[in-house]
């Protein structure tokens, strides 16, 4: 029985074994999207005909005795920042809606399809990925499936919401400052921001070249690992993509945590957050027997430097559009990018020097720690249209910007981070970041799998 809660790997096994046809699996996903997405607004395009044709091709391969791959017949969808052959890459904007359709799939999309997945649509996001809430002026807000009056998070709000609602079991998003981890936490699903350079960004519209990452969302750890394994690895089409071979993380699940040194990130990561957000970290730490606290050096300055670099790079990329078509931007995106265009060059370069320093100091921390624990967001999902500022403790902070307070210092230096969900009946979800040294996604998957097996974290379908 395949339903909204069936995992990607269970679907793939059933399709490969001929127990269910891929056409039926895809038809059921399209029916769920048709029935539920009007109330969520995760999808900006649904590729019904293409998906049904791809599904029929998978069924023919199974009938011919072939193995379509580890994700055989799994319905997937991607943030509309990714090129999809034949589809205009909106990047959440009205401006790009006038572009010609993409000639080919983005590399990560092509790899998912090569693994047997069937693309069923493209997903909503903040304009040009510059936001944390997916309150998109042009395409409407994506609603949080666990409380439709609340934001789904962003900028990959559509990908997180589609998985949380059980519309599809796997999606792809991007994360520059927290855009996978924040919506994963707010919607109560698993999200992975891999090491910078681990997954190709070829065919993905940039926000900030220094920090843009591609990664998957899923409702269980094995699915997340399977998606990551499918998309990770070298790609000559992305100059920032590492030539380092990717480890197979699916093989790590169920592995022992013995000898793994796990600590809690203190200082900055324990301030300006609700008790519930910090309690989520404490719950994970207790389950793992982690008592030691470590402090990263000057993470508040890392966050500030990340803001400067993101703004400067984003503004440089969109300069001509800002000059010629400012009125067609989402006002929130436009006014921040215009401001960034006026930053002195020295500010950008000093932030990049700080980045090199911070990377070195954090590498020292990881000499005697394998996995760090930190909250993903400082609070649960805000209401759609929430006030500009929020009071927390003695501070008045920018409601939407503060959602990235704990994610930005980590993506700033490209560390791999897996956000695990804590979903409690009757309450909004929280996320906890599992953070490792560069290239050590394997440790994150081992820890996440243990937490899931012990019932500490999990992502039930939001009905």
């Amino acid at each position, binding site marked *: 029985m395949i339903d909204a809660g069936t995992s990607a790997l269970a679907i793939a096994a059933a399709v490969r074994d001929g127990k269910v046809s891929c056409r039926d699996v895809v038809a059921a996903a399209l029916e769920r999207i048709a029935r539920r997405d009007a109330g969520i607004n995760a999808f900006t395009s649904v590729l019904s005909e293409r998906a049904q044709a791809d599904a029929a091709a998978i069924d023919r391969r199974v009938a011919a005795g072939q193995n379509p791959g580890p994700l055989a017949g799994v319905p997937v969808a991607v943030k509309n920042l990714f090129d999809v052959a034949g589809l205009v890459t909106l990047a959440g904007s009205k401006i790009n809606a006038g572009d010609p359709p993409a000639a080919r799939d983005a590399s990560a999309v092509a790899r998912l399809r090569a693994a047997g997945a069937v693309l069923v649509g493209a997903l909503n996001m903040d304009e040009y990925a510059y936001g944390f809430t997916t309150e998109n002026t042009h395409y409407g807000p994506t609603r949080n499936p666990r409380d439709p009056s609340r934001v789904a998070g962003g900028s990959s709000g559509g990908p997180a919401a589609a998985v949380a609602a059980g519309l599809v079991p796997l999606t792809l998003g991007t994360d520059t400052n927290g855009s996978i981890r924040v919506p994963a936490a707010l919607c109560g699903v698993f999200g992975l921001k891999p090491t910078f350079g681990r997954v190709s960004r070829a065919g993905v519209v940039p926000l900030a070249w*220094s920090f843009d990452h591609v990664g998957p969302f899923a409702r269980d750890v094995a699915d997340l690992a399977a998606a990551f394994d499918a998309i990770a690895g070298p790609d000559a089409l992305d100059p920032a993509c590492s030539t380092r071979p990717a480890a197979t993380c699916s093989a790590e699940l169920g592995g022992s945590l013995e000898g793994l040194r796990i600590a809690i990130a203190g200082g900055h990561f324990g301030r300006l957050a609700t008790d519930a957000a910090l309690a989520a970290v404490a719950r994970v730490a207790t389950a793992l027997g982690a008592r030691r606290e470590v402090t990263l050096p000057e993470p508040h*300055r890392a966050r500030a*430097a990340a803001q*400067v670099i993101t703004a400067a790079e984003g503004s440089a990329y969109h*300069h001509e559009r800002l000059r010629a078509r*400012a009125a067609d931007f989402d006002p929130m995106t436009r006014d921040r990018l*215009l401001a960034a*265009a*006026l930053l002195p060059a020295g500010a950008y370069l000093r932030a990049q020097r700080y980045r090199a320093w911070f990377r070195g100091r954090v590498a020292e921390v990881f000499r005697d720690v394998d996995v760090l624990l930190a909250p993903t967001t400082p609070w649960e999902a805000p209401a759609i249209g929430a006030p500009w500022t929020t009071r927390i403790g003695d501070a008045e902070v920018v409601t939407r910007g503060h959602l990235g307070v704990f994610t930005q210092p980590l993506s700033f230096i490209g560390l791999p981070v897996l956000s695990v969900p804590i979903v409690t009946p009757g309450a909004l979800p929280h996320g906890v970041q599992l953070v490792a040294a560069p290239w050590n996604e394997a440790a994150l998957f081992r820890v996440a799998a243990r937490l899931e097996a012990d019932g500490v974290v999990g992502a039930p379908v939001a009905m």
Partner: protein
Amino acid sequence: MDIPLTETDVERLAAEVGLPIAPASRAAVVVHLNALLAAARLVDEFALPDQTEPAPRFEP
């Protein structure tokens, strides 16, 4: 620069980089630019060793 920029400052800076800013956007741009400059100051207040090079590397 510790004195917050004004709409007049933003108008002048925008003209220098050839980027027209609609009057309706100026107040918001001022708020965002002052926030970015505050973030930049937070970075600048931390003394880095002279030998620290910017993070991006170019390999010919």
